[in-house]
């Protein structure tokens, strides 16, 4: 028996500009342009354990107006939460 986490992140392809700001998000072969960035924040947690968290989050508005949350891991890989496009 276990609790099942909701909104588990899944891998995504994110196109960024030269400053590392997301411009387009591709999940499951569908590309969505980023219309606006509503928020961004940094999470650095559990650094005292063997599984540290180092993520740069972006709350994005993508075409045609959906809000998605994506983040970039410290190694440069991108993930998007299940409410994505």
């Amino acid at each position, binding site marked *: 028996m276990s*609790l099942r*986490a*909701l*909104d588990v992140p899944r891998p995504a392809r994110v196109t960024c500009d030269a400053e590392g700001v997301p411009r387009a998000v591709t999940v499951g072969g569908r590309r969505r342009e980023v219309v606006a960035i509503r928020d961004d924040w940094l999470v650095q947690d559990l650094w005292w354990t063997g599984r540290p968290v180092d993520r740069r989050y972006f709350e994005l508005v993508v075409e045609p107006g959906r809000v998605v949350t994506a983040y970039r891991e410290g190694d440069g890989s991108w993930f998007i*939460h299940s409410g994505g496009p």
Partner: protein
Amino acid sequence: MCSMIVAVHVPRLPLLVALLQARRPLDAPVALGPPPGAPQVVGLCTPAAAAQGVRPGLRIGEALARCPVLDLVVADPDAAAEAFERTLERLEAAGFAVEPIDVDGAAFDARGTLRLHGGLDGVMRRVRAALPVGADGRVGASPTLFAALQAAREAAPGRPLVLSEEEVTGFLAPLPTARLPLAPELVAALHDLGLRTMGQVAALPRAAALERLGFPGLAAWRLARGEAGRPPRPRTPPQPLRAAIAFPEPVGSLPALEAAARLLLGEVAGAARGRGAALRTITLRARLADGGSWVRELTLREATADPERLAVAALPRLGEIAAPVSELWIGGDASGAVAGHQLTAIPSPSQERRARTREAIHQVRAAQGHESMLRVVEMEPWSRRPERRWALTPYEP
């Protein structure tokens, strides 16, 4: 087919458990110290201590004189009993209907499992695999229970001793009479008569054994002659009332812990009701993310199998957990009786609705699977990591 009784003997389990708890190496000269109030003699000892002359029953002063670096550790009978219970569970999981014998032995009739495990060799392999590593477990087999138990005691660790029907009498003959299931005074009487081995007892005329030792002596005389005594009486495998939930990420929020605890209490209470029993005590255990643990044992005012009443007693205690939890465990002692409660003549509308909802959910789950009726619980709604905010848990009305 004649019966083939398999017996196991795990004499050093209390020492192994004590060594593990004290974090002492198995190859160090260590012995079990006396429990509080007991005579000042040492108990079981490691081979390193035995090599220097330490023996169980030796006075502590003499043991230290023989082995100055001898280390004494405190025995934990409860932990040893629990470890042996896990051994029995492993045997039962392999299909053997075991009877526990004393605190360090067990026996079962292997007839029904020979084909399952590919013959007696396969049974022996499964039995040896079920024994705890490092506890000096021994295995014996014989057509009779008594001889099988003695074979297990005489077997070398890792080498089962199997006796055929013809070998039993000869095997038992040199063993001491103290091994016979007799009261100490009868064993002393045998010694007074100069009878020190089972072979000497077996050589007595039946009438002499009966006259000198009575009916218990006659039963022992039969056993010494290798005659079949009683068969093993398998126990009913206990169904321990415990349930655990492992969290994908350590949980620190009280609502999430309460939701998990409600699930576990529902499971434990349902198991108790299924056995026609009620819970007298419940134990809450949490494994903390930092490696520590938290335990609370609650004694209920009256035994109950009602999850709501269990929740009233248990949930407030969860607030005492001071660190994120990686696993929550709830167990119970279902030795209480369900009877003796006044039943409600007319259930309230809310009870009626809840019962109907519960029945509907059971039917949906029966048709669609256990994952079909879930609800969302808040874990850490303030978290900046979205996957930590909510979780899905089975819906219980």
